[in-house]
């Protein structure tokens, strides 16, 4: 594989969720930490769409925030285009222009007091890419690129529907001419027919501008439709990474299999959905060893003691002791 555009190694993020100091002293409590992500490593090649899926609380959005620099990681490194980012110092401006983010809620991510033209031109102004006249023209052009009218620059966000707002958010993300866009649940707030429009638009833009996406979603069918490779998260750890289409036909990790079994499908294949056992545990006190072991059908003693390390599989990699046993047997 060529030099990856984004490389993430051992990314960990802990949140301090302790009680206030006085309560801790009186009640003799230890500090408490919530581990949102533990030891997450993956690479994204140029031009590909890498997706992260997982249930609520599995740490999908925390990874997105760390990648774009909205949250400093507790440990681990992020390398973008061969340049390691010093997370303590923040992301240097020269790199910052090259990645952008699209958020989930298009009602919260656009400033209601700004005109659409100003919203789209803000990154251009911030990075000093053009003079104000050109920036205005560029905003109008970008609106047409995303399927709106150039005359919309003078309107306010409240004049648009959810799908149209998400198009505006995409136009804003494109305005600094980024190479890499982090999309955090870009269509979860939209209706299916509008979702189809936005997903098609994202694909067209990827072909046109050679973009690389990190797509975060809980919707497995959206992920399958959009991505080249998929990473599956469980309680902050990557349990499996695989090529998108293969993940759905030959899932390796027991959690991936369980997740796929649970998805309702339009295909009416007649398969009886196997109801998943149990729920995602509390991330403040995750089970020891493999975090999935209390729900896993293949559990054995070793899973309760040791955290499994990622191992190569025919379709990517997976972290599971049961797979090791098969490989060594």
């Amino acid at each position, binding site marked *: 594989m060529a030099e990856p555009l984004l490389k993430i190694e051992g990314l960990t993020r802990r949140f301090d969720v302790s009680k206030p100091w006085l309560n801790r002293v009186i009640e003799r409590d230890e500090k408490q930490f919530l581990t949102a992500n533990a030891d997450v490593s993956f690479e994204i090649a140029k031009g590909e769409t890498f997706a992260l899926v997982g*249930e*609520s609380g599995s740490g999908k959005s925390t990874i997105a925030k760390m990648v774009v620099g909205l949250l400093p990681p507790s440990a681990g490194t992020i390398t973008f285009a061969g340049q390691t980012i010093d997370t303590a110092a923040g992301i240097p401006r020269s790199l910052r222009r090259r990645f952008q983010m699209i958020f989930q809620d298009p009602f919260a991510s656009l400033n209601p007091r700004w005109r659409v033209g100003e919203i789209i031109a803000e990154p251009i102004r911030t990075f000093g890419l053009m003079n104000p006249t050109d920036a205005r023209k560029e905003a109008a052009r970008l609106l047409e690129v995303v399927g709106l009218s150039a005359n919309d620059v003078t309107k306010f966000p409240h004049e648009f*529907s959810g*799908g*149209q707002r998400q198009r505006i958010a995409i136009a804003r993300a494109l305005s600094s001419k980024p190479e890499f866009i982090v999309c955090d649940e870009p269509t979860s707030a939209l*209706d*299916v*027919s*509008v*979702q*189809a*429009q936005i*997903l*098609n638009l994202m*694909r067209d833009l990827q072909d046109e501008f050679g973009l690389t996406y990190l797509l975060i979603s*809980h919707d*497995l*069918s*959206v992920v*399958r*439709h959009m991505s080249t490779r998929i990473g599956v998260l469980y309680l902050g750890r990557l349990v499996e990474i695989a090529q998108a289409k293969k993940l*759905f036909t030959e899932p390796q990790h027991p959690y991936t299999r*369980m*997740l*796929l*079994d*649970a*998805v*309702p*499908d*339009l*295909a*009416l*294949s007649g398969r009886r*959905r*196997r*109801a*998943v056992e149990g*729920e*995602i545990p509390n991330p403040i006190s995750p089970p020891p060893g493999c975090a999935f072991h209390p729900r896993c059908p293949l559990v054995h003693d070793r899973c309760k003691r040791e955290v499994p390390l990622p191992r190569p599989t025919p379709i990517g990699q997976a972290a599971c002791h049961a797979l090791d046993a098969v490989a060594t047997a």
Partner: protein
Amino acid sequence: MADPLLSVRDLVVEFPTRRGTLRALDRVSFDIMPGEVLGMVGESGAGKSITGAAIIGLIEPPGRIAAGEIRLKGERIDNLRPEALRKIRGKRIGMVFQDPLTSLNPLYTVAQQLIETIRTHIDCSEAEARKRAVALLDRVGIPAAARRIDDYPHHFSGGMRQRVVIALALCAEPELVIADEPTTALDVSVQSQIIEVLKDICAERGAAVMLITHDMGVIAETADRVAVLYAGRVAEIGPVREVITEALHPYTRGLMGSIPTLTQESDRLVQIPGAMPRLNAIPQGCAFNPRCERAFAPCFTERPELLALDGGRRVACWLHDTAKASEVPHG
């Protein structure tokens, strides 16, 4: 054919606003048979939840039922007085809402809420009601139900709370359960558990279900028949399998094509141009005509009525009206 359990005829719900009256539902008609699961799908603003709220008499004023009738086992329930309605609500029609956190009272234990509901509708002692409540919690899959019944709602996770809400909806043994987006707030792995519980327990007790959701996958696996709403009107009703695989209405067809599936190979999703019209700007004729590829002359002037076709299917589209369709220039 048996008599329908619930029959809705030409239901119109209006909301008077400063800028004129908005019609949230415009002559909606459908039936639910005893023991049947009817799915109700549509995009935001299509009128799914309003239909549910109208049936159970929970339309918030100034909204009102302006015309039409709702019959439960032949008896009209849309014009009842509040006291009479309260006897039906909960007792004969149960309701499961989307957000399990807001549909439980945080200040009362689960036991108190269940026992209160059971004793309101069924004449029995406190101890008897408690026994029923425990059995019900056990049935909806709450582990150690006898102990957990005395917990408060915040002690339960989202999926467990929704199980409690289902128990609450079913505790008076209703004939019909209206489930409004019961799994939308939940993760997929929990969603499948909840749908399973809802489906099994209703089948066990012979309760019919009206399942309101925007998730076609859930409908495909749960419902017997499905009604597709668009801009406050029924576009199509029919058995689930037929509606999904060979939709009659161009809107339904576009909707099905726009959903990514786990097996398809195509690179692009079907795209319906535009968006659903606002309620104050519904076009004349068929509400879908500005977005429809196959619209022809009558679509712009006359509203199509629901036509009954073979196999229990109904569709509101001029393309399926033999008299009108002969005018279509291309077959």
